[in-house]
């Protein structure tokens, strides 16, 4: 049943949010630290385990796949509800900082990815 898949997804989501909230309290930060990330890790681990044990059939799993298919539509709705006017009215400082700081971060991606490949190679050879 599809709802089983959705329920597993919901369980991972809520457990992840709980971990994020607890971390927030531990580090005295008013909010959630990495709740979504922990939810994803839980689903990766739990999903793998459930597949091996064959607890969820394809029909139930399709309940999770429905939501990952809704991901792009949700992002479209999200971009349509951003405060774009405020972003453009923040003046030159906002525009210059927003664009240049972002471009610089982009330019670092190939550098770090080279570093990752190097450590990956040395890691596999040892």
């Amino acid at each position, binding site marked *: 049943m599809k709802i089983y898949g959705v329920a597993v*997804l*919901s369980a*991972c989501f809520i457990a*992840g949010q709980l971990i*994020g909230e607890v971390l927030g309290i531990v580090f005295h930060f008013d909010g959630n*630290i*990495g*709740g*979504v*990330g922990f*939810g*994803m*890790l839980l*689903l*990766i681990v739990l*999903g793998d385990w459930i597949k091996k044990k064959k607890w969820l059939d394809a029909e139930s799993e399709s309940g*999770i*796949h429905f*939501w*990952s298919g*809704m*991901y*792009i*539509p*949700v*992002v*479209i*709705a*999200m*971009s*349509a*509800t*951003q*405060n*774009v006017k*405020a*972003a*453009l*009215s*923040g*003046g030159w400082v*906002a525009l*210059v*900082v*927003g*664009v*240049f*700081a*972002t471009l*610089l*971060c982009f330019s*670092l*991606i190939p550098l*770090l*990815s080279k*570093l*990752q490949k190097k*450590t*990956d190679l040395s*890691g596999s050879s040892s």
Partner: protein
Amino acid sequence: MDFIPKLFAKNELIVAFLVVGLIMFISVLVSKHLLRNKIPGAAVAITLGLILAYFGGKKGIADMPLFAGMAFLGGSMMRDFSIVSTAMGASLSEIKKTGWVGILSLFIGIAVAFFVGGSIGYAMGYRDIKTVATIGAGACTFIVGPVTGAALGASSDVIAISIAIGVIKTVVVTILTPLIAKRIGLDNPQTAMIYGGLIGTTSGVAAGLAATDPKLVPYGALTATFYTGLACMLCPSICYFILSLFI
């Protein structure tokens, strides 16, 4: 005739499904026939969403009663839920391969955004340390800016600027990612995780990767979701302290 707007208001989420479906349909047509598939339909749709948002207000298009449901469909609950669902099918071994470089990318991404953003603000005439720090934090994400500004006691117009910086970053990341993905080697899970950690703005990373290659979304989103929380801790504390040594 006033029963029609009432009907739309009563079923706002369903209306939002219809609206997003129409946006997607138009965007796929534009991508196919006008852009010869050079820019994927999802990227066109997200850009179209941003353009529509300009005609709205604080909550973009959702400020119009007819489109109020868009705020729910595109809100943080649905966004986070659907992001988590993409993790099904992500491979644990691919994530382990990225290893410590993924964590390193988070710290480098936050430091570069904060100090480069702050320096540009300083160069453009903002000399007050709290203002410079808030501008730098805004260059992380549009949540880190106001959180840092509030923690340091920056003025509300500076906080507004920091939000604007964060939103512009999201827009730039969303539009630029699919265009330069090939050039920066963004076509594998490891680079996607580094990209998520360096850029950090979850909505931009998620939208940018969705338009580039939906298979990469879980990897980029995984690191990016730790960025805002980490930056909210580092910016008003360690980063601010380092900044105080220079100003």
